[in-house]
């Protein structure tokens, strides 16, 4: 019991085990798996990252002029790093940083409309395919005429 009292007394002066957040930042180790970043200029738009992503946190929206728009949802991402490992140009087109997404209170930030975007991407892809096919057909029709 006396030992217990001594221990309790000593504990009063020990450094606290918790972090005084937000005054003190959390310790994040090197190579922590955080947010995914993308560079439009380096990407070759192969869509591999979209296909391998387990939760579907990367979406490419097809535009009618052939270009694509990269969309990323950090609140759906499980930070597995699979996309970066499979990207043909890792660390150039796609890389993982050491920061994570912070919690958010606004609907816009947490990408509330992500699932409608998913549908939009699907539709855009089908439309683009049709568009391309019709272009091809019209080219074929044009050829004999000329």
């Amino acid at each position, binding site marked *: 019991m006396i030992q217990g009292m001594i221990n309790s007394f000593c504990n009063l002066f020990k450094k606290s*085990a918790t972090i005084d957040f937000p005054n003190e930042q959390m*310790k*994040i*180790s*090197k*190579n*922590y*798996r955080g947010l995914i970043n993308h560079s439009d200029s380096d990407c070759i738009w192969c869509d591999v990252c979209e296909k*391998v992503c*387990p939760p579907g946190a990367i979406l490419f929206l097809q535009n009618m002029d052939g270009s694509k728009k990269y969309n990323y949802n950090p609140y759906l991402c*499980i*930070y*597995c*790093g*699979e996309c970066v*490992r499979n990207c043909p140009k890792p660390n150039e087109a796609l890389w993982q940083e050491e920061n994570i997404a912070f919690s958010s209170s606004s609907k816009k930030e947490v990408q509330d409309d992500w699932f409608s975007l998913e549908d939009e991407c699907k539709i855009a892809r089908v439309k683009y395919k049709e568009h391309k096919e019709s272009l091809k057909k019209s080219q074929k029709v044009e050829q004999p005429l000329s």
Partner: protein
Amino acid sequence: MTKVLNVPLGSQHVALLEPVSFKLTTKNERVVEVTADVGYVHRGIEKACETKFKFKQIPFVVSRVCGLCSITHATTSTLAIEKLLNLEVPKKAKYLRILALELDRIHSHMLCLAHTAENAGYEALFMRILRDREHVMELQEILTGNRVHFDYVCIGGVNRDFDNDLNSTFEKYLKIFENFTTEIKELFLNNWSLSLKYKGVGAISADRALEQSLAGPLIRACGLKIDVRSEFDFLPYSELDFNIITSDGGDVYGRNMVRLDEIFESIRLIRAVINNLPEGDIQTKVKGNPDGEAIVRLEAPRGELFYYIKGSKKPNLDRVRIKTPTFTNIPSMIDMLKNQEYANVPAIIASFDPCLSCTAK
């Protein structure tokens, strides 16, 4: 005069934080009848694995079955898929898998010990164990890049290499682990008030344990040498002189001792892995789609984890069946609660290390 009382315990109830509900019928403080409902957190993961995800994504999906043994789920499913693909995994990857598995075992056992302490009414010990457990989480983060969901194992090997400059970091952390485990063990061994809640409480005989096919530290606490790690050679445990830890008595005290000693054994295994780490690649290339059926068993922190996987040369699997040790242990938990004093019930439940997310998956 005997008074019969029905006491609900659990599922969004203050007395038990896990999403499980027990209905206890008590007669004068003694439990006579128990019913349990474990289906509160069913997420349909098995079905999702068959329909929504390709086989390469399965390890990432199943590791979300449970936050405590996520690496065991990922490794077991990976081993099963590798079996179907006839992949030969580099030796270094196998060793690194053991490293991650054993680190996971340490933190999982510590959480269980903390909960047994808490449910025995020793809140301060709970906090203390969790404080020390934080070091284990840190080391896991250093090794894999995340505290909880490691996503370290992939089909064909592991995702990250073990740099040689990690050696000294590991040694530093392992020393810390050894120190605090020794201190905690001292408390669990000698604290008089803890022994009141542990010794002889929730005891089960070895025969009965076999009959009910208990798993993991629970059956080893009955003195039986049953451990999947020594039965299979999916992972090279035999090269590391793996010992099965047992205790006797089959009570809460015995289970705590098994867990504590297993922490020491895991620390030893981690050292052995680092010292004997082979050179070479950490991944092989994956070709083709899985075809056929495979069964893999692996020792999770809570006991034997079982995976059945069936594929037919398609990217999607035909069937994924997961049998978790916690689910196996539920019937004997119900059995054991009978004839116990009501006050001992939380400690017994905690000593089973129940994990409802993997029971219901």
